[in-house]
């Protein structure tokens, strides 16, 4: 006897389809921070060291077009250039730019979890003790340590795949977030590197805190006021 409604079946199948790649990618447990990497702190975008999206798109476009041309030249059979969809790199690049928009990161890390708060975006959250993907009908999310790098994988409908790979300089002077966007059916992923540098918030400025009772309250903090 069937235990599920037809509607439930559709929803569950959709979730399972979203989950499938995560079952494969989370083969290694999320819990092993074997290198004792600590991302915690306040980080702001270092524009100079980060990829400049338009330039990266142009560079990728040129590179892939050259590859395609070479492939066509070498191929015995005729290849329709339109089928390789080189132009899609521009759309993919623009989408990646929107996904990697954060300019300020506020990272809270403990032994068993990390929360990467991003301005104007949702927080990337990883529970090291629990590698199970976080799944909803609108997408699935997982995280894993890849040696000294922490990777967040998002599996979204319509074949959209996003990964954020966090890596830290040995002297903690910079943190790189490599955001890669793939779309199933397109042969080229697009990666944007955003480099962040540490900063101390609130020095000689306002310190703001959100509370239920008072909403957002700001007070003067940091250096002494004149």
């Amino acid at each position: 006897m069937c235990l599920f409604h037809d509607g439930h079946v559709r929803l569950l199948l959709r979730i399972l389809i979203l989950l499938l790649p995560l079952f494969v990618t989370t083969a290694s447990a999320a819990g092993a921070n074997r290198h004792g990497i600590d991302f915690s702190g306040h980080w702001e975008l270092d524009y100079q060291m980060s990829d400049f999206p338009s330039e990266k798109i142009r560079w990728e476009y040129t590179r892939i077009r050259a590859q395609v041309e070479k492939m066509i030249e070498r191929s015995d059979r005729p290849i329709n250039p339109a089928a390789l969809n080189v132009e899609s790199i521009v759309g993919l690049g623009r989408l990646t730019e929107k996904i990697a928009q954060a300019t300020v990161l506020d990272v809270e890390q403990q032994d068993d979890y990390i929360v990467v708060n991003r301005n104007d975006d949702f927080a990337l959250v990883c529970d090291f003790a629990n590698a199970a993907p976080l799944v909803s009908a609108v997408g699935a999310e997982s995280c894993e340590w890849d040696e000294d790098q922490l990777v967040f994988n998002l599996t979204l409908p319509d074949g959209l795949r996003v990964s954020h790979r966090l890596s830290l300089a040995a002297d903690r002077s910079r943190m790189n977030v490599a955001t890669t966007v793939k779309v199933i059916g397109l042969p080229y992923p697009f990666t944007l590197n955003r480099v962040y540098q540490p900063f101390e918030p609130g020095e000689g400025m306002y310190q703001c805190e959100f509370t239920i009772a008072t909403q957002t309250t700001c007070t003067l903090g940091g250096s002494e006021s004149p």
Partner: protein
Amino acid sequence: MKPGERLLALCGLLMLLGSCATPEQAPLSAPVSLDEVQLNVATRPPVLPLAVSISRFDAAPAETGGLRSAVNQVRSVERRFLPYQLKLSLERSGWFGPVRVLPVLDPGAELTVRGVILSSDGTHLALAIQVEDATGRVWLERDYLDSASVADYTRDPVFTIDPFQGLYDQIANDMIRVLADMGEQQIRQIASIAEMRYAAMLSPEYFGRFLNETGDRYGLSGLPAASDPLMERVMRIRASEHLFADSADAHYESLYRRLGPTYAWWRHYSNELISGNNRLEQMDATRGATPGTWYALERVYKIYQESRMNEDALRELTDSFDRETAPTVTDLAGRVVELTGTLTEQHQAWRQLMRQYYEETR
């Protein structure tokens, strides 16, 4: 579970689901809709109103525990929010005395309500409720299940009517049914035993002898004299306890008022997801996003982003609730005390103070 086993389990589940893609079949146990439940409202105030203490609900452990689980964040709100919703139903019925929501069990309560959130996703709400009076008699011990439809949410866009109101009213009605069958003598005895249990908590060696305990049930083997100075002191402390309980209750009211709209939004949103009718896909179509276009993909990401940002907001609100509970300034039999920390910590400190005060003034 090893990755291989996980994949195997997933394949098994897929096969099971595949076998279900047959003609529509009714679920084995259809959720009950309690939309038609009418709250039993007292026509006149009760002669001996029993005070009700609702302790913060427990929650069945979520399947995907840990920090990433939005369910856990929402449960954290619900454990505080849903008891308050029940309190409102009980108050509105007019059958009971003061109804308070407390962070822990109240040992001197006349009537105690415990609850466990079995499941809650905006579409279904299942609660296990146990109601027990001071004598140890269990009034109710059953699971309640209610379902909400999209219509429940759309008919009230500002979320002033709880889509599961029928469930709370049903619990209240079940409690009222037991109460209505009780005689005045029985109700009076519950109140007396509650007083004596409270007194025995402060001084078991003195007041314990007035109580007889058989298993889980309590009875009276006598009562102290009306002019007993120790009992007078206990009653003064108990009055202070009620004031403290009122301030704890005010914290829950604050949560209810401030978090209500956010929680209602989450529940509405969750309801849309769980109903699984491809609403999001339909939204794409109606908004002119052609599948396969960059605009459509951008919308896919934005919908995910929006749902996760709302989870973040809910988590921040939940965290700040416990963090910001302001110090409670209260009166302990004429002495002003200030308590800090979370509500649970404040409650523990309060109990410690009461015992100290009782010992000091013996």
